[in-house]
């Protein structure tokens, strides 16, 4: 199943992960509820969807999810995507 994300979605995910925009830059960073340090670039000026390749890189490399699916569940706030739930896990 394919998952699509808008740039607003990525911003919401970053906020939920305790990240904050750094001044007027495109860089967001912070320490999540799991204690993991994350940093990510968000294109506030872009509208529409994030490309699937970039969504995958964002999910795994920058935001430390195990998969795009897990990031989608985290965004939707399902039981399986909440930090601390039995099915929630970040890759290290």
């Amino acid at each position, binding site marked *: 199943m394919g998952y699509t994300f808008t740039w607003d979605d990525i911003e919401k995910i970053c906020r939920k992960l305790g990240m904050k925009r750094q001044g007027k830059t*495109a860089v967001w960073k912070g320490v999540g509820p799991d204690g993991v*340090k994350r940093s990510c*670039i968000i294109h506030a000026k872009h509208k*529409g969807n994030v490309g*699937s*390749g970039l969504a995958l890189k964002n999910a795994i490399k920058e935001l430390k999810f195990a998969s795009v699916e897990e990031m989608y569940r985290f965004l939707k706030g399902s039981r399986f995507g909440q930090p601390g739930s039995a099915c929630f896990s970040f890759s290290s």
Partner: protein
Amino acid sequence: MPSVPVHEAKNKLSALRREAVIGKEFLLADAKRKDDQPVSLISTVLLDELCETKTFSYEWIDGPGKENDHYSLYNLETGVYGVGPTKMEAVEDFIDNIIDYAGVYFDDLPFYLSSSGGRREHYWYLRRVLRCEGDRERIYRILDLDKVLAV
């Protein structure tokens, strides 16, 4: 490698600098902070040459299609990307983003250099960006961005 106490280095900094310019490296030792990591006084040119081995590689990971109308250019070494409706605009966006990232990175080195952050290895790549002092043409040249437009 010569180790010079800080109080001694203060008194002969010009002489040490002259020797460093021709390639000598000095370790500055602080007797009051024995647990601190050593700090070097070394030629900037030598460091720049060392950094030249840190080359940037890229992938076009997205192109215009059904769900997305942009190109995404991704740098494998730093995870920085650029997005745009054309490849050239994606490259320009990449330059904006890597300038932003280098600035934020060097403003909060404890965060990015910590072993748990997984971004320590970005240091020398971003130092190359920082040394360009915001000159976009120089960044374009030094980061080999002409190659990505040839693909």
